[in-house]
């Protein structure tokens, strides 16, 4: 009996934790029934486990929709990738094109006075605009890419603002159920001011993004009107709106499309 007690009392804790199975479990249960000391210990440990099973956090739901989390994670992944990621070629192409244009414009000015060409030779040289080093097509392409880049940056920053508002859980005035949205209203105002510059002249290059840009603008205007310490209900309203319009997902898809 004593030997059995010494052997089985070590199983009381696993029994209470629910990790014993089969014969081990039935053997230990029988012992617990018969042994007052082990039964008391088992009951005390079961109370601990029951308290955890009754803890409401077991079934807690994240306070933000999945789309917000996905957007936050993708933004962080993007940030982590940018230094080692693929270079955006127009960021290289634009300065290169500017340098070529500068050379095209300056070389005749600098070389011309020093070494005047004979009349016959000068006449044989075709006018500069007839065979430019950077064609109009190439410049138009660079402009289109720049417009897209501006739109991508605008949408990404707008997405960050919306995530900040929707995901906030920081109380700034618990008594009045107010939440801290930090600089989100200020950033919204800045973005709205930049909107025309960022995407207004994009023309056809960002035509496909027009719907998203309009919806983002509407929501940013609402955020821009908020104080930094805002009523929970107002945050909920913005969150609902973003959710219903599927803004974060659309921003994500559109930025990818614009990035090509």
């Amino acid at each position: 009996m004593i030997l059995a007690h010494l052997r089985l009392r070590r199983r009381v804790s696993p029994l209470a934790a629910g990790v014993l199975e089969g014969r081990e479990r039935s053997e230990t249960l029988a012992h617990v029934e018969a042994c007052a000391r082990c039964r008391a210990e088992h009951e005390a440990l079961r109370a601990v486990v029951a308290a955890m099973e009754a803890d409401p956090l077991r079934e807690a739901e994240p306070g933000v929709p999945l789309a917000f989390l996905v957007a936050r994670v993708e933004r962080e992944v993007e940030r982590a990738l940018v230094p080692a990621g693929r270079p955006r070629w127009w960021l290289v192409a634009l300065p290169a094109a500017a340098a070529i244009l500068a050379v095209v414009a300056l070389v005749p000015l600098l070389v011309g006075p020093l070494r005047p060409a004979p009349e016959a030779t000068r006449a044989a040289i075709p006018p500069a605009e007839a065979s430019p080093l950077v064609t109009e097509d190439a410049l138009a392409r660079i402009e289109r890419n720049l417009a897209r880049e501006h739109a991508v940056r605008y949408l990404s920053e707008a997405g960050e603002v919306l995530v900040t508002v929707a995901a906030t859980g920081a109380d700034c005035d618990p008594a009045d159920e107010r939440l801290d949205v930090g600089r989100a209203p200020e950033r919204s105002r800045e973005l709205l001011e930049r909107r025309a510059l960022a995407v207004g002249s994009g023309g056809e290059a960002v035509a496909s993004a027009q719907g998203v840009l309009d919806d983002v603008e509407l929501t940013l205007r609402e955020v821009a009107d908020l104080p930094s310490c805002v009523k929970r209900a107002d945050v909920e309203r913005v969150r609902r709106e973003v959710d219903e319009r599927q803004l974060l997902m659309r921003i994500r898809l559109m930025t990818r499309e614009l990035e090509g």
Partner: protein
Amino acid sequence: MEPLQGGAGDRELMARLAAGDREALAPLMEKHYRRLYRIALAYLRQPDDALDVVQEAFVKAFQSAPKWDGSSEAGPWLARITVNLSIDRWRRNRRRAQTFTPLTESDHAASLADGGPSPDRRVQGRETGERVAAALRGLPERQRAVVVLRHYQDMSLEEIAQALGMSLGTVKSSLHRALARMRTGLAGARP
């Protein structure tokens, strides 16, 4: 409780992540984010911190996907990342001396599922939650991780061993010690 083993679907998503396919993040998150959130929340007891940990866990998963051992399950692997990040966050919070701030009522209300229990049960649940939180705080980091995975995620001892990189024997003894310690803690906290 959501399934821990994601099977072939998880493997495919992990393989895509390893190849740098960011489109695989959303479906992987959809499958696991609730479970990881509950692990982090049970460990940290702060909804905002738990959300941050889940976010970091998926970023880390994306970055570490090429190193993922395809023979193991993604579920325990993600749980391991989440537990380690929760422990890091816990240490940082402790250093900032904010660790012992009790959950406020609004934190709890926000963390409960929509259409949850009645107000009475919520109050009761909150009291239980606070007592359990205090008892969990009294545990060493790894013991707390074992208890969280076992009693908040219903993971088997083998799964816990795999997730935490511990031997089965260590998991068993950790669970035993943790429950004994919590028993004392809860008895002391009883009203």
